[in-house]
């Protein structure tokens, strides 16, 4: 019989353990959310990430090793993003009707999000490289990495900033917008998708289908606009 540690080392090398742990953490997180009466802080993505992160840090397993198993879940992200075309088509009449306010608030929201992040980071005395890495945080991680790289930031830091932004949005958006009494699902979804990309969009879909569709539109459009605006804003600041 092998000892327990050796067995763990063996299991840690197979994708099965990380695949299973990711799904199990999500189920536990869903259960905690139900237990809390659907509290916003008990967001399943946030809780799963914290449980997984702590487990990995404590057991000394690298992220690369974890991802070698979890990539099978990550892989389904691609076709699911493509699948968002369906609800978008179903609700296209609504989106088309609102296209003018959407485009105008896209322009304003995208600029506000970048300028606000850069301004606050500057105010807090953060390093220039750090500022350039967090500026595109509202774009989805792969886009943010490309932007940060092109303006002199660090790509991996940009990815982390984008992920943290997404999780923050999934946690605070609903209580925040409820508190301020926003009742228009279009505005609520669009604001979350624009500012918090995919993770925000996933959250919006769990709240209301219309919010999900508008979040998809916000995510897709702001991904592109952030790639254009971020370098322009830094050019202007120089």
């Amino acid at each position: 019989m092998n000892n327990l540690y050796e067995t763990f080392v063996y299991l840690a090398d197979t994708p099965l353990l990380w695949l299973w742990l990711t799904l199990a953490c999500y189920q536990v997180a869903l259960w905690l959310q139900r237990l809390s009466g659907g509290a916003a802080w008990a967001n399943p993505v946030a809780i799963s990430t914290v449980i997984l992160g702590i487990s990995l840090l404590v057991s000394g397993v690298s992220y690369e090793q974890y991802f070698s198993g979890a990539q099978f879940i990550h892989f389904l992200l691609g076709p699911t993003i493509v699948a968002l075309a369906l609800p978008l088509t179903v609700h296209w009449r609504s989106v088309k009707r609102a296209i003018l306010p959407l485009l105008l608030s896209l322009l304003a929201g995208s600029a506000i999000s970048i300028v606000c992040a850069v301004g606050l980071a500057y105010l807090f005395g953060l390093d220039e490289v750090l500022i350039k890495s967090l500026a595109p945080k509202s774009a989805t991680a792969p886009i943010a990495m490309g932007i940060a790289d092109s303006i002199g930031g660090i790509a991996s830091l940009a990815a982390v900033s984008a992920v943290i932004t997404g999780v923050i949005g999934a946690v605070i958006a609903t209580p925040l917008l409820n508190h301020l009494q926003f009742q228009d699902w279009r505005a609520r979804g669009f604001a979350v998708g624009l500012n918090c990309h995919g993770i925000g969009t996933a959250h919006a879909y769990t709240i209301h289908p219309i919010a999900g569709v508008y979040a998809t539109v916000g995510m897709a459009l702001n991904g592109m606009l952030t790639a254009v605006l971020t370098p322009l804003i830094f050019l202007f600041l120089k």
Partner: protein
Amino acid sequence: MINALIVLFGFQLLGTLLERYFALPVPGPVIGMALLFGLFLVRRSLIAPMKPTTDVLIQYLPVLFIPAATGIITFSDLLSVDGLLLVLVLILSTLIGIVSTAWIFCKLARRWVPPNEEERSS
């Protein structure tokens, strides 16, 4: 289900191909979504057979982000002063960003396209 997956993976493939070939700053799946949306608009009959599959995938969208989100642990300076300030900047700017975007949209929409029954929460 297999047909739906062929369409979804096919459009992801096509999107990724275009992204790589033209060095576009938009991820392949997002381009794939835009193209499939275009196809749906001209061939509405494709929507119904695909809906069972896309509904299931979208229902589990949050769980699909967990492997990428766990990448936060690679940011070892998270608990340093700069790391905490970074998180504070992200919290504040996300808060301001969400509220201002929602507010501007509502102001404009109230005048031009007020929400109908379905678009409004009660």
